[in-house]
C-alpha cells in the first residue's frame, strides 16, 4: 500500500544541490588555491617518520599549481556529472568532496615547504581515540534506547581514578582496569536514574557531567595538588610497535606503532560491529532501542538489556577517560577532557549510530584537530580556532538531514514502561 521508495522530487533537489556544491568548491579551489600559487612551486609531503624505518619510501613531491588545477578539475567534473546524471551514493560524493578539497588545501598551504603527512595522519589516529571511545559509548547506549550525554563527566571520573590507581599501585594495567570499572559504575548511576526512576535522560546526563566536573575538581584541589608524586604521577602506557606490521610504509607508523588504548579502540570497533549486527545480543539490543514493547512481549528483559548496554558503554567511556591520563600525559588536570565527550556524541550521529561510522567520523574529527596544530606551524594565516569549529559545524549540518539523514533509534531517549 505504502510506497516506501524515496520521493523523486526531493531526490532531484538534493542531486542538484550536490552538483552545485561540488562545482562551487571546485571553483573555490581554482580561485583561492590554484591562482594564488606560482608555476614551479613544489609541495613536499613527508611519508616517513624520522625513526629510521626499515623501509623508507621517497617523499611525495607534488608540483603545487598543477596539482591544484587537477583537483579543481576533478571537483568541477564530478559536479557536472552529478548535475547531468547523478551519482547514487552520497558517501562517494562526500568522499570526493572532502578528499579533493583537503588535498588541494594542504598542497596549497605547504607550498615550497615540507609537510609530514605521516606525522599528521598518525597524530589524527591518536587524537581520534578518545573521541571514538566516547562515540562507541554513545552507540551502544543509544542503540539500546538510552541517551547518554554524561559521557564527558564519565570520562573525567575515569581519568582521575586511573591516574590515582596508577600512581599508588605503580601498575598501569590495573589503572586501566580501574578506569574501565569507574566508567561502568558512573554509567550504572545514569542507567539507574533513567531506568529505575525514569529521570529525563538529558537531565540525568547533565547531572553526571556536573558531578563529574565537580567531584574530580574537588578531589584534585583537595588531594592531588598537594600530593602530586604520591597520587598524581602515574607515568604513561608505552607505545608498542607491532612487529612486521609497523614496518609497512605509511600505514605502519600511522596505525601499528601506538599505545595499547589505540589498538584496543580499533579492536572494540570491530567487535562491537559484529556483536551489534550478527549476534543475538545485538539483535536484542537493537530491538530494545527500536521497539522495547515488542522485545518485551518476546521475553527479552528490556530493563536488563538497557542496564548492561549502558554499563558496557560506560566501560568504553572509562577507557576513553584513561586515555587522557595514563594514555597520554600521566597526570590529572581539572576538566582535562575539554569537550571530547560531546564531540564523541557528534561523531556518533555523524556515523549514523554504527561503530564503524562512528570511528570513521572520529578519525575525521581527529584529523581536523591535528590539522589545526600543523597549520599553526605552517603559518597559513587561517585562525586555528576556525578549523577547530569545523567538527561542530559539520555535526549541525548533518543534523539538518541535508547531507544524508541520520536517523536515531526509534525509542532512543524514551523510558520504557510496561
Amino acid at each position, binding site marked *: 500500500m505504502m510506497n516506501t521508495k524515496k520521493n523523486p522530487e526531493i531526490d532531484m533537489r538534493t542531486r542538484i544541490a550536490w552538483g552545485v556544491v561540488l562545482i562551487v568548491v571546485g571553483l573555490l579551489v581554482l580561485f583561492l588555491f590554484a591562482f594564488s600559487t606560482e608555476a614551479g612551486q613544489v609541495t613536499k609531503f613527508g611519508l616517513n617518520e624520522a625513526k629510521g624505518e626499515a623501509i623508507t619510501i621517497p617523499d611525495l613531491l607534488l608540483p603545487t599549481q598543477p596539482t591544484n588545477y587537477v583537483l579543481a578539475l576533478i571537483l568541477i567534473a564530478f559536479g557536472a556529472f552529478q548535475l547531468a546524471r547523478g551519482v547514487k551514493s552520497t558517501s562517494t560524493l562526500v568522499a570526493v568532496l572532502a578528499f579533493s578539497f583537503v588535498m588541494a588545501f594542504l598542497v596549497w598551504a605547504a607550498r615550497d615547504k615540507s609537510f609530514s603527512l605521516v606525522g599528521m595522519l598518525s597524530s589524527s589516529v591518536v587524537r581520534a581515540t578518545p573521541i571514538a571511545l566516547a562515540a562507541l559509548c554513545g552507540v551502544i547506549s543509544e542503540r539500546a534506547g538510552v541517551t547518554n550525554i554524561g559521557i564527558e563527566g564519565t570520562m573525567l571520573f575515569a581519568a582521575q581514578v586511573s591516574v590515582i590507581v596508577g600512581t599508588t599501585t605503580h601498575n598501569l594495567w590495573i589503572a586501566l582496569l580501574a578506569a574501565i570499572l569507574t566508567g561502568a559504575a558512573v554509567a550504572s548511576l545514569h542507567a539507574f536514574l533513567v531506568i529505575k526512576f525514569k529521570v529525563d535522560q538529558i537531565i540525568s546526563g547533565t547531572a553526571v557531567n556536573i558531578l563529574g566536573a565537580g567531584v574530580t575538581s574537588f578531589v584534585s584541589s583537595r588531594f592531588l595538588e598537594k600530593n602530586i608524586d604520591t597520587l598524581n604521577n602515574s607515568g604513561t602506557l608505552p607505545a608498542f610497535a607491532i612487529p612486521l606490521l609497523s614496518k609497512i610504509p605509511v600505514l605502519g607508523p600511522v596505525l601499528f606503532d601506538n599505545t595499547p588504548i589505540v589498538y584496543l579502540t580499533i579492536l572494540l570497533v570491530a567487535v562491537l560491529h559484529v556483536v551489534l549486527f550478527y549476534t543475538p545480543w545485538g539483535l536484542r539490543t*537493537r530491538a530494545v532501542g*527500536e*521497539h522495547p514493547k515488542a522485545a518485551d512481549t*518476546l*521475553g527479552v528483559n528490556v530493563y536488563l538489556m538497557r542496564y548492561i548496554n549502558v554499563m558496557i558503554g560506560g566501560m568504553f567511556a572509562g577507557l576513553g577517560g584513561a586515555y587522557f591520563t595514563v594514555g597520554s600525559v600521566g597526570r590529572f588536570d581539572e576538566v582535562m577532557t575539554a569537550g571530547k565527550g560531546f564531540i564523541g556524541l557528534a561523531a556518533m550521529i555523524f556515523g549514523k549510530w554504527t561503530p564503524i561510522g562512528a570511528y570513521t567520523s572520529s578519525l575525521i574529527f581527529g584529523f581536523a584537530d591535528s590539522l589545526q596544530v600543523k597549520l599553526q606551524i605552517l603559518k597559513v594565516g587561517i585562525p586555528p580556532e576556525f578549523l577547530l569549529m569545523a567538527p561542530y559545524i559539520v555535526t549541525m549540518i548533518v543534523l539538518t538531514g541535508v547531507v544524508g539523514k541520520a536517523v536515531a533509534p*526509534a525509542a532512543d531517549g524514551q523510558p520504557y514502561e510496561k
Partner: protein
Amino acid sequence: MPVLELRGITKTFPGVKANQDIDLTLEKGEIHALLGENGAGKTTLMNILYGLYKPDKGEILINDQKVDIEGPNDAIARGIGMVHQHFMLVPVMTVTENVMLGNETTKSGVLLDREKVTQRIREISDRYGLEVDPNAYIKDLPVGIQQRVEIIKVLYRQADILILDEPTAVLTPQEVDGLFKIIHSLIDSGKSLIFITHKLKEVLHIANRITVLRLGQVVGSAIPGEVDEQKLAEMMVGREVNLVVEKKVAQPKEAVLKVKDLHVNDERGNPAVNGLNLDVHAGEVVGVAGVQGNGQTELVYALTGLLPLKSGTIHLNGKDIHKATPRQIIEQGVAHVPEDRQKHGLVLSFPLLDNMVLCTYYKPPFAKGVNMQDRVIAENGSMLVKQFDVRTPSIFVAASTLSGGNQQKVIVAREFSRPIKLLIASQPTRGLDVGSIEYIHSRIIEKRDEGTAVLVVSSELDEIIALSDRIAVMYRGKIVDILPAGATKEHLGLLMAGVKPEDIPDSAKKKSAGPVEKVF
C-alpha cells in the same frame, strides 16, 4: 480436558477493578471468543495470561497443571502465544529478525543463523498458508501481511494456545475472510484459540463458544446459534442497546466543501492521496469508508491544513483554501475532531478550561490584545462542561485525568460550540464505550440537522453505515465510488479491497445472507 483454565482471576489498578474473579476455560481445538466493550477488561485478562501483568488473586491451569506465569518467557515456554492488537514488530528489521528475536538460532553458538530461521519461516508459511517474504523489512509490508508475521512469530515458538487480540480491527472484510481461513487451518492442526473482539457478528460467525465480559466481570457465556446480536449486545452493555442511529432523511443544500483532483504526500514524502474528488453538502453526512492507511488520514490533514497539498484544489464555501494554514481554515468555520485525540485533540497536561479554548484563545472575548481573559475562559469552560455532560470534578483538572469518553466529549464540546459550517470527524468514537458512542453519534446528527456539512472518516464500517447519508469508499488515495446510505457491506467491502466498481457482482449489491455479510 481443557487445555487452559483460569480460576478467579482478580486484578486491581488504582481506582479500577480491571478483572474480578474471572473464570474461563479453553478446550482443545476450540475457538473461544472473549467479547466485551472497550474497557471491559479483556486485554488485561489476556496480559495476565501472557505474563505481562501479575494477578492479585486467582490461578492459571494449563493441561490441568497449576502454573505460575511470571513473564512472556514463561507463557511462551508453556505454549501460549499472543498476537497483539498493536503489532509488536520492529519496523526497521526484517521478517526473519522479528521472528527470531528473543529465541535466536545461532551458528557455533555466537553468530545469528538467519538462513535456518528463514527456512523455518518458509515451512510455517507453506503449512498454514501464511505467505510472506522472510527477507522483507516490516516497514515495507502492509498491515495484513504484518499480521501474518505476528502469527508466524507465535507458531515459530510452537504455541498451542493462541490469543488473538482484536485481530480484525485493521482488515477489510475480505482480509477478514482470509484470516478466518488461517484460523481454521490452525484449529485443524490441533491448536486452540482465544479470540478477543467487540464485534458481535464476527463472534457469531467464528466462535465455538462466547464469554462476555463487562466492567471486569464475566456476565455470561453463550453458544452461537443460541443467541443473536441483540442479546449479545445487551449482555455486553448491560442494557438494551439501540444498534441504529435514529435520524431523519437528510436535506442536503449547497456544496460546502469541494475537493478536486487532490494529491497529498504523507509525512515521509510518499504519495498518499492520488487525485481525489469529493463534495460535501450542507445538511448531509458523507462517510469515508476504507481500510486504514489508504490515505484517509492524509485527506483529513490536507483538508485541515496539517499537511500541504501537492496539487489539486480545495474550495470551502467557494473560497480556495488549498494554501491556507490550519488557523485560516479554522477561522473559515471548519471544526475538526481528530483521529488521535491525545496527540492532536488535547493538551493533556493543560486544565480543561484551557483545552476548551485551544482554537480560540487569541480571539475576543478570550483575549484582549495579547492579554488573556482568565475569567471569561473559566466561565466558558464551566458552561461547556455542563452543556456537553463532561464528567469531571472541576474545570481546573488536567485533561489527562479524564476517561477516554470524557476526553472525546471535551473535544466535541470545543469544536461544536463555535459557529461552524463544516465538521470533519475522524474516527470520532475510537476506543469509546457504547454510552459515549451513542452520545457522540447523536450530536453529529444534530449538527447535520442544523445545516452543517459533515465529513465522517472511520475504519468501523458499522459506524459509517449508521451515520452516513452518502458513503465514499477510499482505496489507494482515491474515492473509488460513492454509494447511497443503503449500500450493503459486501459491496462496500469489495470496493475497500480494491475491486473496481464495474466488476462488483450484482449479488453483492443486494442485501442477502451471503458469507461475507455474516462476518459483520
